[in-house]
């Protein structure tokens, strides 16, 4: 089930919530689990945004946010790198990763274009990988 949610675009957590929720109670289950998962955090984050509006003039608050965003960037990169480790079992698939990075970060193509260009290569290599 986790596998399905990883191959579908969109927020992974809510996709997983749809899968799990619909398993138990169809459409209503899916909606309930998505709501249950996101309502609380949405209110918390809005509360934080209110605090931010009041205190963002403080130099220390700005510093804290700069620090956290630098860590956040590192966290995202390490998610990608962790997944990348598995790809070394079949090195040709690294080509897809390189194509995507060049198309997105060097040529600054739109996300839809990147996906369009890279997915034939990705499918072709994945087919070879699966055939082994």
């Amino acid at each position, binding site marked *: 089930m986790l596998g*399905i*949610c*990883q*191959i*579908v*675009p*969109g*927020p992974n*957590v*809510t*996709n997983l919530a*749809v*899968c799990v929720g619909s398993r138990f109670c169809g459409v209503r289950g899916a909606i309930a689990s998505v709501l249950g*998962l*996101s309502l*609380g*955090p*949405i209110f*918390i*984050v*809005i509360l934080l*945004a209110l605090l*931010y509006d009041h205190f*963002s003039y403080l130099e220390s608050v700005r*510093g*804290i*946010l700069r*620090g*956290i*965003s*630098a*860590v*956040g*960037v*590192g966290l*995202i*990169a390490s998610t*990608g790198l*962790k*997944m*990348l480790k*598995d*790809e070394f079992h079949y090195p040709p*698939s690294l080509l*897809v990763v*390189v*194509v995507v*990075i060049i198309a*997105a*970060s060097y040529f600054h193509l*739109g*996300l839809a274009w990147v*996906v369009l260009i890279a*997915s034939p290569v*990705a*499918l072709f*290599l*994945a*087919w070879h*990988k699966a055939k082994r």
Partner: protein
Amino acid sequence: MPTLITLFLKFSAFSLIAFGGVNALLPVLLELAVYQEHWLDLQTFSDYFAIAQAAPGPNFMTVTLIGWHISGILGAFMATFAIIWPAGILVFFLQRFILKIQDPMRKKTVQYAAATLAIGLVLSSAIEISLQINHGTMAFLLSGITIAIVLLTRWHPLYLIGLGALLGACGLI
């Protein structure tokens, strides 16, 4: 109101191409919100990114905060709903279809292909976002240290967020 409609339509479209989740989508969100539509400036975007990272819950909170910035509670919910519903409906119908695929070859092919796409998108997102919101050597150093700690140890990310906040509060970043 037209802004909210634009936001809703664009975010709904993004939902369907966000392979690798919302983290992979961040550069696109930044490009749209900061440079195309001028909904917020770069500093506010990176602050919202930081708040979203520190807040508990799903990782799409940057989206929620962009909506909040545009039109308060309504905007926050509208933006969040927009990023969730298309992918949610897609996965709802697709899960049965995918579970029915008997041929393990086809199943694996789709799975492997999506994984490599997601990796590429997440990594290039990290590169682009870091170039936009990391200012100065110390910020890049901290991102690098974060990567090293995550890959080499079993620290919970929350400790790293705390470390970043502490270093930032001391005015080091």
